[in-house]
């Protein structure tokens, strides 16, 4: 690790105007398009992640609305079967991969350094790279869709229907290669979160003083690091099956069921990847509006970690109908029951926080309160599917569609919307409008429940999922009409949020550094924060540095105004993993186009592979290496000057 000269003065200083100016000069990038493309500022990428994920949410939402019109009555012919099948596949993969996880990455990329009192992520260039390649992987898959080659085998993509024999078009190749690119993005992002969490916390922020959102994200990141290899491999093997006649998943020598194992051993942990950070948002932000710390910090953290660990042991419950042996069935069924216990811990911690707090009913709070109930609903329908015999009836019906939407909208979307009301002011310096906010909350909440609560019944009435139409007379028509109406109300609610963001960005009330009286470090700096985040590196003495005046947690006081300034260059303090004792001063890399170029080259390599353009593939591989060389090229300014004395 690059360590700066240790014999220069590291005295604690008060941050004056001259220091701020110096820091601004050091940290601010170029203006203009080139600056926009080459910046490595985490706050930029946090916002870009969120904006991009919202665009995908809108696309996925429009796809859903078209499907809902098709399903609003029996035997409708708005869509051909192939169109419907591409739409439900695009909708599922868009929401799960291109919206649900990236939007949470956006919050975390934006907030991590601010919550932890750091100046940037541990690897700012890697951060830029994971954003760009996420964007390009999404565009790659959508390019297929726009050209008429959208994936048409669902997000789960089971062979042999996904194999060349039954699916000769390039549809699946767009999906397979796009997913490999996407896997690079989530893996790079996860590694960055883990290292940032371990080494970039403010001095004094020992591991038991970290905000829950960062716990949620780091836990999810470990989940990504261990699960994504399975799916990247699976998609790669599928691609070789399709293009070169290998036989991993076909019914000759291969096993179609192998795909399902590889897929679900990834996709079940993924469910926790898209909810744990969202639960973290609620665990951190709900207490602000209850005017008290979260009840049971330690058990909630343990529950978070326990959920992820157990999340690796239940994948078979997606395969209860595949004819697996009785013993395996019993084990995975029991494990799937037990995994709900940590979730119960979180639910009661939130309820206790409300009951022992004094809630201020802001829009954000309403989203979080609604979230608690929706979380429970999605949880209990999950328990029903954990019961193997019951699941063998429920699986692949609309009951499961209702369940996943309670999980994904109830837990992810509601938390994200509430989180925006909390942190949009930090990101833009302007508050979202509260009156519009109430409308936003109630339309989303009611629309969502009108659409998806009756859908449980649709499933119990036996309607299978992934069908482009259904006959009359089976008792499915009325519920489907209600669902379609609810879907449009929900869409209107999402629109209200967009309007609110659009209007408030310019005309909202000024937020000030700390509009809600929050406890954590991001509220100690301006809104929006300067590029260097904090003029002095804060030193933390408790879990709630900004609430110490009222809570008196440890007797000591955090030091937010006096501290190291580190204005000799683009520098950041790194600390030890458990106790967050100062360890080294790390030189931070300047802005560069290299991550963008690397991402472009990788995507072009994917496109060349899709087209079997092997010369192009070779060229793009070389370009990829060239971009990586530029990225990593040693620079004197980044070099280590002398070894810091070990204490």
């Amino acid at each position, binding site marked *: 690790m690059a360590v700066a000269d240790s014999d220069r003065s590291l005295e604690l200083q008060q941050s004056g105007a001259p220091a701020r100016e110096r820091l601004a000069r050091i940290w601010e990038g170029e203006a203009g398009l080139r600056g926009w493309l080459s910046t490595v500022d985490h706050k930029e990428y946090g916002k870009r992640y969120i904006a991009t994920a919202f665009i995908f949410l809108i696309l996925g939402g429009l796809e859903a609305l078209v499907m809902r019109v098709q399903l609003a009555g029996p035997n409708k012919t708005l869509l051909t079967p192939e169109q419907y099948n591409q739409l439900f596949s695009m909708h599922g993969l868009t929401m799960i991969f291109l919206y649900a996880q990236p939007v949470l990455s956006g919050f975390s990329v934006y907030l991590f350094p601010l919550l932890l009192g750091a100046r940037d992520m541990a690897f700012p260039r890697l951060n830029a790279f994971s954003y760009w390649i996420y964007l390009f992987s999404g565009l790659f898959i959508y390019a297929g869709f726009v050209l008429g080659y959208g994936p048409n085998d669902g997000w789960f993509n089971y062979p042999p229907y996904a194999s060349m024999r039954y699916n000769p078009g390039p549809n699946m190749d767009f999906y397979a290669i796009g997913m490999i690119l996407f896997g690079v993005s989530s893996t790079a992002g996860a590694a960055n979160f883990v290292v940032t969490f371990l080494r970039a916390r403010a001095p004094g922020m020992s591991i038991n003083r970290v905000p829950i959102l960062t716990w949620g994200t780091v836990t999810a990141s470990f989940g990504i690091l261990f699960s994504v290899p399975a799916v990247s491999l699976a998609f790669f093997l599928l691609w070789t099956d399709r293009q070169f006649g290998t036989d991993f998943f076909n019914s000759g020598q291969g096993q179609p069921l192998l795909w399902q194992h590889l897929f679900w051993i990834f996709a079940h942990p993924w469910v926790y990847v898209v909810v744990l950070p969202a639960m973290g948002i609620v665990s951190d932000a709900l207490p602000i509006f209850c005017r008290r710390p979260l009840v049971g910090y330690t058990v909630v953290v343990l529950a978070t970690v326990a959920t992820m660990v157990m999340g690796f042991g239940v994948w078979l419950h997606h395969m209860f109908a595949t004819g697996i042996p009785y013993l395996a069935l019993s084990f995975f069924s029991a494990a799937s029951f037990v995994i709900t216990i940590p979730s119960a811990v979180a639910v009661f*911690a939130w309820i206790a926080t409300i009951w022992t707090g004094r809630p201020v009913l802001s829009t954000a709070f309403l989203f979080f309160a609604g979230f608690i109930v929706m979380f429970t609903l999605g949880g209990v329908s999950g328990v029903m599917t954990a019961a193997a015999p019951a699941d063998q009836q429920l699986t*692949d019906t609309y009951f499961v569609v209702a369940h996943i939407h309670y999980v994904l909208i109830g837990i992810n979307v509601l938390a994200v919307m509430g989180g925006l009301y909390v942190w949009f002011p930090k990101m833009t310096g302007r508050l979202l409008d509260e009156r519009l906010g109430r409308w936003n909350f109630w339309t989303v909440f009611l629309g969502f429940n009108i659409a998806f609560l009756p859908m449980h019944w649709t499933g119990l009435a036996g309607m299978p999922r992934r069908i482009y139409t259904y006959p009359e007379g089976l008792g499915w028509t009325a519920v489907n009409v209600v669902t379609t109406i609810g879907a449009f109300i929900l869409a209107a609610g999402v629109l209200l949020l967009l309007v609110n963001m659009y209007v408030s960005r310019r005309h909202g009330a000024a937020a000030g550094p700390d509009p809600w009286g929050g406890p954590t470090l991001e509220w100690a700096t301006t809104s929006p924060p300067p590029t260097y985040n904090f003029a002095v590196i804060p030193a933390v003495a408790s879990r709630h540095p900004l609430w110490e005046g009222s809570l008196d947690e440890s007797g000591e006081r955090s030091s937010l105004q006096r501290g190291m300034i580190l204005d000799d260059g683009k520098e950041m303090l790194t600390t030890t993993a458990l106790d967050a004792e100062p360890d080294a001063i790390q030189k931070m890399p300047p802005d560069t186009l290299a991550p963008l170029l690397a991402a472009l080259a990788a995507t072009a390599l994917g496109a060349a592979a899709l087209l079997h353009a092997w010369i192009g593939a070779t060229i793009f591989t070389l370009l990829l290496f060239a971009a990586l060389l530029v990225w990593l090229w040693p620079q004197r300014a980044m070099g280590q000057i002398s070894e810091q004395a070990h204490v």
Partner: protein
Amino acid sequence: MPTPADPAMNYLEAFGEKAEAISLLTWALLILSIAVVAIIALLTAAGVTMRRTSLAAEDAKREPVLRPSGGLSWITVGVALSTLALFASMAWNAYTMAAVNRPPRAPALTIEVIGHQWWWQFRYKSDDPAQTFETANEAHIPIGAPVRLEVRTQDVIHSFWIPALGEKIDLIPSQTNVTWFEAEKPGVYRGQCAEYCGQQHAHMAIAVVAETPEAFQAWRVAQLHPAEAQQGGLIEGEALFQARCSACHTVRGTLAGGKLGPDLTHVASRLGIAANTLQNTTATLSGWIADPQRIKPGNKMPTLDLQASELGAIRRYVQSLK
């Protein structure tokens, strides 16, 4: 137009020993779930209304921060009660799993279920080759006796599912799955493919006709018969069928021996056509033979461009295959 099967596919109502055990468990979990959601919703709503200090977001920063104690007991009590409910459900679950795992008596009959994009082939097995026969999309079973199912697929993954009689079982290439079901009452039980299998996954329905053992026996004997030799007005239809349809369809007792489509030896005795997409009537049958791609786009039966007179002759011949 209702498809030819009732009762509907609601599986909270069951019509066989196996499905009953499952629906009881489902009901129990459903009621427990509703209770849990109601309790949590009430707790949340009551907490919000009783404890709230302000409706205005900007008051947040003015309200003092406190740390009243007593919060942790919520977690202890809440999690303890949830765990109790969970373990009770787990016990019931384990009990049900054991109960439905094997048939209570020796099965009366074995049916081989073979999935195709997008129709069902049923092969009635027997040790005596003369007693085996095949049909499609509509299976008959005797009531009051477990039936053994051996399921496999000819192409992609499908899932066999008759909600009122029991759970789904997937049809997976390179493996044969075995399960069983049983009907208590006579009736027509509708089912549908439950695993996404491509364009016409939506139109892959099953009719299971459960009847008294006597009626079943009579049906079986009738099915074993090959098609009768045709005379009179049907000869032309038969010839056209041989020319245009026999590459894909079998009619036992004739030269038609195609394997790509459903066996039509007794198609006229079935309730539905096109995997129960349509009721079996003169009009629907004509419509289907004239243009199957309009009714079920993408399905593997080509549109044959028949003359009106040819169509009529073929349709009459097919309707004679009782």
